[in-house]
């Protein structure tokens, strides 16, 4: 009887279709994190298995991830959809927007309620002293130091068209990270920055929003974008959120999230539930980040070695092919890591996954290994080379028994350089939601919270030192004794 029950249970569990996991994405700022958590909780409450990839990047990365299917939905703003995704200059009706998105296989929920438009903010005391209250007042103060986010600087609804509309000619404008910008504003190193109208920092830092007296900024109503192939029950769940979040409520949630550094908690506030107690075990968290970090570095370095050394061996021979190999691995090195990640994410097979991060890190690890292998082999004196050949060793035996051991120290130094570069660069993997020690660094930057940054930065620095020591130890194992003796 008992065994029959077990059998029944097994059959039952097999026959019930396992609901597919839904992946929610979010951009790299508090409100997006919170909205992502709200979506996650809503879907979980409806019985779905949900994963939230926090702070994956900017609009382009999220949009590509959504279209590529790495994520099923993410929070977006109507203004961004019009200007950045659909790339039109004129406001679109909701229906028109839906129709255009449908062509890309993407659906859009109704508006959640609040309008998070761009705003220009200044310190209240500074603005009062200069007599500035609206954007057109800036015309009289071209000397102000402006620090706006890189995204705002480049956007079609950003800084440049804004200055055209208002006829502003500001002398000192530079791009600065959003969170760092608040710190710069507080210390007075910049006078004005861009912000979002629901930004919790506005109240916290006693800033004022300059009046958009020429109505330049478009509407940024929050919505969720989702893949049309998402289950209809999940879509219905998301539609239930429509119209439930006004500016005041959103600002409160944002403020709560920033105060507690806990997005799940803020989302729970929205639902009026008690949050599932998050793990407060700092060492456990650092341990997990470090482990993930080491996975990324280890996997990419391993690939770097098994690909880089053969390439280096080939590149040690004179000729065009060698020049090509060295030039290519050199060029790869010059691509900014952020740009490389952004380029890889939309490609098939990559997307928002550890594979992308590992591949990017692998590309960065190539040059030092390839170059050092090639140089190490080329530096072997002709006399030694010819002696190995004259003994009657086959070419591959010359390589394995003589040339590679003689070049081992240089090759190992290349691997060490790659490892240290990888440990540093792997922190950027967090930008595409892959985790590692970059996770606390990025969220700390977004929250302007130094202690969180240090939770990632200190272990990362220690890890780099450790890698250094580790390779110094490997020197004793891999470099033959005869090469370590001083003449």
């Amino acid at each position, binding site marked *: 009887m008992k065994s029959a029950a077990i059998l029944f249970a097994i059959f039952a569990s097999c026959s019930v279709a396992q609901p597919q996991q839904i992946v929610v994405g979010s951009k790299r700022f508090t409100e997006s994190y919170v909205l992502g958590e709200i979506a996650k909780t809503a879907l979980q409450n409806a019985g779905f298995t949900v994963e939230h990839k926090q702070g994956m990047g900017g609009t382009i990365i999220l949009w590509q991830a959504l279209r590529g299917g790495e994520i099923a939905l993410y929070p977006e703003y109507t203004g961004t959809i019009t200007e950045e995704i659909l790339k039109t200059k004129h406001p679109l009706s909701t229906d028109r927007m839906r129709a255009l998105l449908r062509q890309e296989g993407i659906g859009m929920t109704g508006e959640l309620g609040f309008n998070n438009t761009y705003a220009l903010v200044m310190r209240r005391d500074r603005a009062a002293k200069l007599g500035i209250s609206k954007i057109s007042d800036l015309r009289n103060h071209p000397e102000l130091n402006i620090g706006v986010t890189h995204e705002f600087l480049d956007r079609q609804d950003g800084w440049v068209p804004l200055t055209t509309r208002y006829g502003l000619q500001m002398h000192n404008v530079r791009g600065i990270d959003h969170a760092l910008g608040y710190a710069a504003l507080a210390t007075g190193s910049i006078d004005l920055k861009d912000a979002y109208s629901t930004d919790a920092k506005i109240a916290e830092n006693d800033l004022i929003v300059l009046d958009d007296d020429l109505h330049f900024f478009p509407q940024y109503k929050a919505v969720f974008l989702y893949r049309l192939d998402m289950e209809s029950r999940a879509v219905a769940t998301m539609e239930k959120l429509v119209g439930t979040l006004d500016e005041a409520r959103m600002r409160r949630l944002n403020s709560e999230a920033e105060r507690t550094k806990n997005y799940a908690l803020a989302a729970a506030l929205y639902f009026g539930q008690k949050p599932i107690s998050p793990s407060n075990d700092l060492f456990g968290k650092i341990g997990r980040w470090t482990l993930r970090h080491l996975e990324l570095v280890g996997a990419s370095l391993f690939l770097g070695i098994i690909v880089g050394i053969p390439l280096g061996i080939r590149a040690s021979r004179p000729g065009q092919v060698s020049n090509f190999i060295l030039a290519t691995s050199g060029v790869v090195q010059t691509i900014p890591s952020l740009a490389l990640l952004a380029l890889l994410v939309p490609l098939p097979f990559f997307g928002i996954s550890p594979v992308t991060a590992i591949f990017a890190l692998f590309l960065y690890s190539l040059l030092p290994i390839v170059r050092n292998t090639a140089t190490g082999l080329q530096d072997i004196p002709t006399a030694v080379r010819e*002696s190995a050949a004259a003994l009657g060793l086959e070419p591959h035996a010359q390589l394995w028994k003589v040339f590679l051991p003689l070049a081992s120290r240089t090759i190992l130094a290349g691997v060490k350089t790659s490892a240290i570069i990888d440990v540093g660069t792997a922190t950027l993997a967090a930008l595409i939601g892959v985790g590692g020690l970059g996770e606390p660094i990025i969220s700390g930057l977004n929250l302007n919270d130094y202690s969180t940054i240090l939770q990632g930065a200190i272990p990362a620095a220690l890890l780099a030192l450790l890698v250094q020591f580790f390779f110094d130890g490997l020197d004793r194992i891999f470099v033959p004794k005869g090469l370590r003796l001083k003449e």
Partner: protein
Amino acid sequence: MIELESVSKRFGATIALYETDLCIDAGRTTVLIGPSGCGKSTILRLIIGLLEPTTGTIRIEGQRVSESSVLALRRRIGYVIQEGGLFAHLTAAQNVLLMAKHLNQPARQMQTRLRELCELTHFPENALTRYPVELSGGQRQRVSLMRALMLQPNVLLLDEPLGALDPMVRARLQDELKEIFQRLQQTIVLVTHDMAEAGFFANVIVLLNEGRVVQSGTLDDLRSRPASTFVRDFLHAQRGLAAI
């Protein structure tokens, strides 16, 4: 016996060796001599297949040196160069035994041979575990010679083997080397630019200049019947010959 038939070597526009016919006798010591760039080292490197001749063929004991035969031929030829060409990552013993181990020779046989060679070259057995950086210049050349002789080659090629040594060590090694040559009774080709050294070792001297063989014969032949003024001048330029 080593035969060069119409062998020449050209590097781009430079001719290192003009068409040359040369026959090197088995079981004797032949010395190639001449000023720098005369082509003497080129001949040695052609014989061991480090260079491919532009024209002509080379035969060692009747077998033609070619891409397919070169590995087997090299294993029957010992080659010693000026700087020794020792592998810095291996001890003296490992340098000597490298090729034998690669060919999976029995350990006992290798150890016996190693001891024989130490005795032959007067190399102290307790220095076998040292690395090249820990050896003196003379010791390095002994190790290089042992390595060349390990597989009991039929032919021994030496390219200025004593060139990098100071005069005292050089003189002592010359004596020892001559004794070794006499014991081996092998085909030996030695390259040098020092006429005294050539006279000391050679059964046959081959004098080269600017990529051509100018004269070959014994030291007496060259001295009493110089083929050209160059031969006379070259011999004259080397002081102290009268002592030999």
